């Protein structure tokens, strides 16, 4: 049943997720060739994963995950509460209107305050949007972004939330801090201009062009203050780091519909291209995905032009396949003439 293809080393590599591409193919072929092989392998895997289950049964680990979950859904529940509150207020108002037919004074006295209603903007891939908030703050929103904000801010602070990328020009008001909540970080400002990128599954990045902002991770473990031309990068695994001397123009080039990157990995660049042109890109080479590129595309550039330009670096080639763009390593690695 178990034949030459599967040995202990390969099994252990498979269980510990350390297979090479070639080995994964071997495993795939081996289990596809015989159902008994598949059953055997997945039974082994099941026993192996009991170990994870034991580990994840750790109380502290569960507590941490639960807190994370609660903070994630609490925003939504809050919105719901506002909504039900809104309807109960409506009922109340209706009664008051009836009463007011009898006594206008009474109506005036009992009019309840307007509740804080939340608005949500979802910008699809391939689009951008601009919004001006009730305090005069201007926000530009990049593709594939969800932005939530109240119609009117509360008395003490200005709270909004962002998943995706936005460029903020916040109206100065020292009495009411402006707070952007994202999944991994919070940014607190009084009045500044900054770019914030928080796509899920990617590092969260805040780049400051004017003023001063405070960046804090959601788990409250990291907190830093940014000055102009500085950039904070946060990921749960690597924590918070800060880079100085950043060209803010590049970070916010998307607000003009341009694409600009300086020493960025190809995988990050491709994610931005995917969002801007609403396409799907696959990088067929692990090494290529982490290679860095510097490039700048004008607003009018089409996807074909962007791909052609990337190709001219002679590091890569591409093809359109089943509605996807596949990027692979250029075979003729000729010396670069010009970029």
């Amino acid at each position, binding site marked *: 049943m178990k034949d030459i293809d599967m040995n202990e080393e390969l099994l252990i590599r498979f269980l510990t997720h350390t297979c090479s591409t070639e080995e994964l193919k071997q495993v795939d072929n081996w289990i596809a060739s015989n159902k008994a092989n598949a059953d055997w392998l997945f039974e082994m895997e099941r026993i192996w994963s009991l170990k994870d289950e034991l580990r994840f049964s750790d109380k502290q680990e569960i507590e941490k995950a639960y807190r*994370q979950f609660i903070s994630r859904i609490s925003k939504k529940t809050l919105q719901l509460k506002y909504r039900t509150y809104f309807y109960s207020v409506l009922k109340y108002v209706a009664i008051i209107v009836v009463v007011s037919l009898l006594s206008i004074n009474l109506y005036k006295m009992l009019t309840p305050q307007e509740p804080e209603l939340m608005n949500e903007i979802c910008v699809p891939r391939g689009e951008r949007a601009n919004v001006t908030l009730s305090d005069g703050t201007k926000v530009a929103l990049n593709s594939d972004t969800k932005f939530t904000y109240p119609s009117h801010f509360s008395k003490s602070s200005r709270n909004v939330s962002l998943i995706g990328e936005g460029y903020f020009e916040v109206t100065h008001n020292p009495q009411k801090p402006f707070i952007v909540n994202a999944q991994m970080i919070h940014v607190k400002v009084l009045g500044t201009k900054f770019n914030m990128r928080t796509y899920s599954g990617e590092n969260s990045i805040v780049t400051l062009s004017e003023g001063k902002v405070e960046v804090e991770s959601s788990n409250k473990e990291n907190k830093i203050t940014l000055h102009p031309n500085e950039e904070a990068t946060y990921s749960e695994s690597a924590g918070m780091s800060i880079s100085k001397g950043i060209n803010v123009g590049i970070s916010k080039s998307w607000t003009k519909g341009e694409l600009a990157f300086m020493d960025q990995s190809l995988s990050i660049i491709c994610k931005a291209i995917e969002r801007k042109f609403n396409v799907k*890109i696959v990088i067929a080479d692990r090494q290529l995905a982490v290679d860095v590129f510097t490039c700048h595309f004008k607003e009018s550039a089409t996807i074909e032009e962007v791909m052609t330009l990337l190709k001219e670096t002679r590091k890569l080639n591409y093809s359109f396949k089943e509605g996807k763009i596949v990027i692979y390593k250029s075979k003729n690695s000729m010396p670069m003439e010009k970029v």
Partner: protein
Amino acid sequence: MLQLDLNIDKIRGGDEEAFKSFFITFYPKLKALACRFVDGQVADDLVQDVFASYWEQKTSIQADNIQSFLFKCLQNKCLNFIKHQMVEEEYESRVRIAEARIAYLADTSDANHVLEQVMNRDLREIIEKSVEKLPPKCAQAFRLCYFHDVDRKEVAELMGISPRTVDGHIQQALNFLREDLKDLFLLVFMFYSTF
């Protein structure tokens, strides 16, 4: 089972305490399942997603469908994640392995979740008992790797043997556990089906 049903009604009513014990029950299982498909950090996100979808749909899901809802939802999310990864060279094998895994889980899941509920508490004890029956060297290598998460190369160094031998021990241990626990799987299942 009765206890679980009771809690579900409370969760539907929005009781947070009830939801928390529900979370505590399912989190380790779901995360362990996700870790078979994807890496830890991603697994974490996907499990959170699953709980969020459950929370949103809690009033419309039938109590007896909850297990399968959670597991299927998670499997789909894992598969989708793998399908959307950008590295293509191993794309096909990863997707195919994941699909084979889902097929395997569908075949065995009925017996499985009854077992999982019963075993949650004594899981470690039960495995430990089986490990004790192994030859000493084999048990030692397996314990280090399995319970203490020591890398196989370090295990080799610690024990003064080659990594290849460590792998051999681990496979031997897993094969043995598979046989040893099989009876138990079957027993538990029969015990339950007679009621």
